[in-house]
């Protein structure tokens, strides 16, 4: 192992390559593939690899070339949270998926609130607003959009829910207690108190699916003895573009893979300071022949704070950038649909948008 190291540093010194990483990229490749994080600004942001821009490069769209370069890696997945990498795609399309996840994947949410009795301190409209934001666990793919003229709602486009709570004094409370939990019954109205009233054939169709709020512990209102709530609600299908309550994701975001290039070997005390400039786990100090040398081990963990550029002696030794076509997506669902189903639905929405305009084009050509 000692001989191997000697050979490799001699080799590098002979050829004038001093960096402890891969050979630096040519200028053109860097403009095409990397976003550079400078001290005062970010450079090379826009996609420039269109056909004809770079002589010598064939950038025309080729589906086979795209399929060869494209990759998806699932990093982490549980019921509501999904982290995956999409590599080899352009920002325009990745952003389209993100925007669709936020605003155009439909869900069911409470839209109409019929207040038969509300003697609580929470105003009707405030309570209705809060009810609208409660995520409802019903598969939106099994429902239709409601007709705009339809006031009543049918079994295929509406879910009916009921909230009926009355607060009373607890007869068995201790004489001198002041704790509301002991003094009153039903003084906190939670989303778990919302019950499903099946309409039409919903009781048979959704026999095993428990339709109701996703979480039962969302506090909706507080009551005192004598106050009650008697509310019937209608849920309809909608998209986030219309109202944020219909958005199926807690949030969906992506970031580009950071890339940290050390332009020289950084040793000793400088290496320690360099390690502190980045998020933990990004830079590791390795013991090479008795000297402490810094090495980039996992640039993915970095949050790109550019702290290293604040230190005058370190800023010229490091090059910060991002890989332009490597997207680290993070999708967190509100619980209505699993996160991977949401991504699938988002891609289907984009396909249906394209198909819609293709049929419009065909129809227009006919005329």
């Amino acid at each position, binding site marked *: 192992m000692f001989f191997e190291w000697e050979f490799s540093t001699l080799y590098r010194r002979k050829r004038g390559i001093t960096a402890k990483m891969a050979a630096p990229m040519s200028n053109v490749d860097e403009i095409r593939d990397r976003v550079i994080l400078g001290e005062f600004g970010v450079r090379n942001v826009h*996609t*420039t690899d*269109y*056909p*004809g*821009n770079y002589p010598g490069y064939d*950038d*025309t*769209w*080729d*589906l086979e070339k*795209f*399929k060869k370069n*494209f*990759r*998806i*890696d*699932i990093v982490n*997945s549980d019921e509501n949270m999904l982290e*995956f990498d*999409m590599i080899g*795609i*352009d920002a*325009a*399309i990745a*952003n*389209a*998926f993100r*925007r*669709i996840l936020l*605003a*155009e994947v439909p869900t069911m949410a409470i839209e109409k609130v019929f207040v038969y009795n509300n003697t609580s301190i929470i105003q009707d409209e405030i309570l209705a607003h809060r009810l609208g934001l409660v995520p409802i666990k019903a598969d939106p793919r099994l429902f239709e959009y409601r007709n705009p003229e339809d006031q009543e709602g049918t079994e295929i486009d509406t879910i009916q829910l009921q909230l009926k709570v009355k607060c009373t004094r607890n007869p068995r409370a201790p004489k001198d207690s002041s704790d509301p939990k002991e003094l009153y019954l039903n003084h906190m109205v939670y989303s778990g108190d919302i019950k499903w009233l099946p309409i039409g054939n919903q009781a048979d169709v959704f026999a095993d699916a428990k339709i109701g709020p996703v979480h039962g512990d969302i506090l909706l209102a507080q009551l005192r003895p004598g106050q009650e709530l008697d509310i019937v609600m209608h849920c309809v299908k909608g998209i986030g573009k219309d109202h944020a309550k219909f958005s199926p994701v807690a949030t969906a975001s992506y970031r580009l893979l950071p890339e940290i290039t050390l332009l020289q070997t950084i040793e000793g005390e400088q290496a320690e300071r360099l390690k502190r400039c980045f998020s933990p786990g990004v830079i590791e100090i390795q013991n090479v022949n008795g000297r402490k040398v810094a090495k980039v081990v996992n640039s993915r963990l970095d949050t790109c704070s550019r702290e290293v550029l604040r230190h005058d002696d370190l800023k010229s030794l490091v090059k910060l950038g991002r890989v332009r076509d490597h997207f680290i997506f993070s999708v967190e669902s509100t619980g209505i649909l699993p996160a*991977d189903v949401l*991504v*699938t639905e988002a*891609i*289907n929405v*984009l*396909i249906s*948008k*394209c*198909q*819609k*305009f*293709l049929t*419009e*084009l065909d*129809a*227009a*050509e006919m*005329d």
Partner: protein
Amino acid sequence: MTHMICGQQHIHAASTGHVERAIDANMVRTDGADEGCVTFVLHEEDHTLGNSLRYMIMKSLSRVVCFYSQDVEFCGYSITHPSESKINFRIQTRDGVAASEPLRSGLNNLTEVCKHVLHTFEARMQAFRDKEEPMS
């Protein structure tokens, strides 16, 4: 100019005096002799489809064999007003190619990309779940 002009976002479609004639709810074509310079008004759309479609059309294949000549001379979109949900999608072509050609091929390419992404994602999710199964 032998290279293609990249359409920047939010470029205003230049008013060339053409009269816009509505065909149906989603598309408006310019009147006039030149079928190659058309502004499509896409209703109920925004950056989601606008930017991705612009990218696919800009990358599209040239039908002419010559290296420097591309079908599409200009492609860009703009959102006329943030309160109105529509975009003006402008395509200008070279050599008298009808503007609906690159639009159609752009839509088809975008559909193919999405289908491939979908298949890859589903395959990887399945592989991930299979890997998790014996561990749990």
